[in-house]
């Protein structure tokens, strides 16, 4: 579904876009298309939901959010929808997904929680628990970050 020009444009957008007054014109010259064609295609990706936004991604530690924890929840199947909606309202929760349970790991909803430190993350988990009535959860703080990059769709 991606043609050759789409692939070339995605390849440009998956990294850093040019830091000059006309970034899409620069991209256009690299991919061999007009600026209007590139902008038209990029807008169409956004309209189709392929592209969420063209934006800055921060090193969150540098931005002052040092704590990050994956908090996993054991939510009764018929309450998952409600739990997800409530957890999503917390600004410290950046990601919230339903996932399959694993052997000896009966947790079915995963939240990524960010805060100033581990205690701040634990406090958020307690607040989510209080707001949802789901009391079985596990805080999996990261012990070590081995890798963090952005997706490379087009090599």
């Amino acid at each position, binding site marked *: 579904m991606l043609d050759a020009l789409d692939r070339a444009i995605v390849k440009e957008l*998956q990294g850093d876009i040019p*830091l000059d007054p006309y970034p899409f014109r620069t991209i256009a010259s690299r991919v061999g298309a007009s600026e209007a064609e590139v902008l038209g295609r990029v807008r169409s990706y956004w309209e189709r939901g392929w592209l969420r936004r*063209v934006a800055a991604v921060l090193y969150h530690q540098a*931005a002052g959010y040092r704590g990050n924890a994956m908090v996993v929840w054991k939510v009764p199947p018929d309450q998952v929808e409600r739990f997800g909606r409530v*957890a999503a309202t917390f600004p410290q929760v950046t990601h919230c997904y339903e996932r399959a349970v*694993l052997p000896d790991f009966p947790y079915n909803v995963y939240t990524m929680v960010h805060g100033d430190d581990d205690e701040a993350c634990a406090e958020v988990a307690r607040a989510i628990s209080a707001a949802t009535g789901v009391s079985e959860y596990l805080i999996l703080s990261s012990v070590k970050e081995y890798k963090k990059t952005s997706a490379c769709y087009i090599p």
Partner: protein
Amino acid sequence: MDGIDRRLLDALQRGLPLCARPYAAVAAEVGISEEECLRRISRLKEEGIIRRLGGVFSTRALGFYSTLVAMAVPPEDLDRVAAVVSEYPEVTHNYARRGRYNLWFTLVTGREEDARALLDEIVARTGVKEVHMVPAGRVFKIRAHFPMAVRGEEAAGYA
């Protein structure tokens, strides 16, 4: 970092307008010139505040497959196994965490079969057999956006 930097970071995290001169539009919103806007972005990258300024795609909508993977690795082997996992460009995030499953990473591949083949290769190379794909079911929230301008006393009220 000053107040203008923080307002700029908030605007940049929300997203650039998809127009010919997006930096001029962001600069106007923040109240600085386009030239100063570009200069500040360049500095915030150099200082290691901005990791990337580019497209944020919906992996699945774009037609790619992504999944979280949980791995139970003997603790003494963790660094070695993690290094093997991190070698693959398809692996975007890779973290050690405490617990029964102690290595968690995310994969982005063309198709689900490609992810399975990659995990088979990781099993063969590391000897660690307990590897599970845990793809997302319902998605309730995705928002990797860290408010900057509200840092300080307001942020303390988050909890």
